[in-house]
């Protein structure tokens, strides 16, 4: 429950900051995706369901406040949460550099999946702009570095450790 509330608070804070800061500093809207960073944070921790739910909820809120196609960002972030959650369950991605690599991957995947989904719905899709994508990657990496390094070791979602094997006592 605590983890859920923590994640919910983090997600709401990310959306609020994203929407409100974008209003004050427009470059943030173009360069940073805080909801994606939260999804990456949970996905890299191995919380597959949590990252998907965070991605879906954050994406919907993002769509709602950004007036984009309702569910578009929810879908892409849900997929990213699923993908990263799977990777996080198999590999240790909890170190900040690994999470930054995950941010890089997630940013690119999101920018590539969005037009595909739009095209799948029969709408006219805008192909990804390399310059815009580069700015988004740089912004996400910078803010993500701040975010992950400051949160390193705090409230980390640890993967369940395998149960210790009992030492067999050898009896003579």
């Amino acid at each position, binding site marked *: 429950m605590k983890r859920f509330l923590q994640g919910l608070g983090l997600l709401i804070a990310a959306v609020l900051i994203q929407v409100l*800061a974008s209003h004050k500093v427009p470059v943030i809207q173009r360069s940073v995706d805080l909801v994606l960073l939260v999804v990456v944070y949970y996905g890299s921790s191995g919380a*597959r369901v949590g990252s998907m*739910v965070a991605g879906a909820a954050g994406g*919907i809120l993002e769509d709602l406040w950004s007036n984009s*196609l*309702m*569910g578009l960002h929810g*879908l892409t972030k849900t997929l990213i949460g699923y993908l990263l959650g*799977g990777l996080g369950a198999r590999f240790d991605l909890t170190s900040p550099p690994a999470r930054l690599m995950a941010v890089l991957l997630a940013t690119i995947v999101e920018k590539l999946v969005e037009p595909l*989904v739009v095209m799948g719905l029969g709408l006219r899709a805008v192909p990804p702009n390399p310059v815009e994508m580069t700015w988004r990657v740089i912004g996400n990496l910078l803010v993500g570095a701040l975010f992950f390094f400051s949160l390193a070791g705090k409230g980390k979602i640890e993967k369940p450790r395998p149960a210790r094997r009992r030492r067999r006592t050898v009896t003579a």
Partner: protein
Amino acid sequence: MIQFLQQKKATLVLVALVSLMLVLMSHDVGGRGGTDVASEILFKAGAPAMSAGSSVTGAVGDVFKNYADLRGVRAENQRLKEDLLRTEHERDEAREEASEGERLQALFEMRKSLPPPAIAARVVASGLASGSATLLIDRGTVDGVRPGMPVIGVGGVVGRVLLASPTLSKVLCLTDPRSGVGVTMQQSGFHAVLEGTTAGSCSVNYLPPYAEVAPGDLVVTSGLDRIYPKGISVGRIVGRPEGQGLQRRFEVRPTVDLARLAEVLVLKAPPPEREPQDAVEPPPPAKDPARPASPRAAVPAPAGRSETPR
């Protein structure tokens, strides 16, 4: 069944969420341009949080903005204070220069009416304490200044040179108790002697008992003392006389403000040689111990008087 759901939980959640998103998207594509109920509910649900967040970020932003403004205001205030001080200093300098220009102009005009040559000098120090009235001027023997030369300021007589060094000279002001000036009452033409007093002013003495003197009468130099040229303003009578008969004394306020004197003229013309018929015995030593008599030896006694009545 439960175990199956547990194992496939992630996949099931993915399917559910993707389906939900697809439904939302298709619904949004179908009703694009309108406002659907789901969006309205979500918007209304999220509005308070957004409003609160906006207030918080606005307040935080205002704090930072006010802080930045305050820092700017502080720096600007400091700069404006410095500007104000500098401007006031410049204004004072300009006023002083203008005042000095006016004084020098007046001195120049006065110099034209005086017998040449005369040299201008600046007052570098003054000793106008009670019982003594002297000035130091920045001209000395190098410039031709000699003891005994008259010193004139804007408005009238200042005094005479008492001592002269190569670059500085000491001027004995007419308000000094050791000073004496031969004067004439401009209105009536009576001659008298103007002496300094210990109170920092001066007084006219030795006027005939029948001489009519009124407050405000102008006192000018008579030229009989062989120091000061004739006809230069000295002061004006103020108040009522002290004493009776020949011992009447009239207080005189000098026309030159000695306390604020900045520039003077030293008349380099040597005092005219005494003619034999003008030679008079110097007045006897003053009976008043506060009035040393020696510097007053140059002042001639009133005509027809063999000794100075005190």
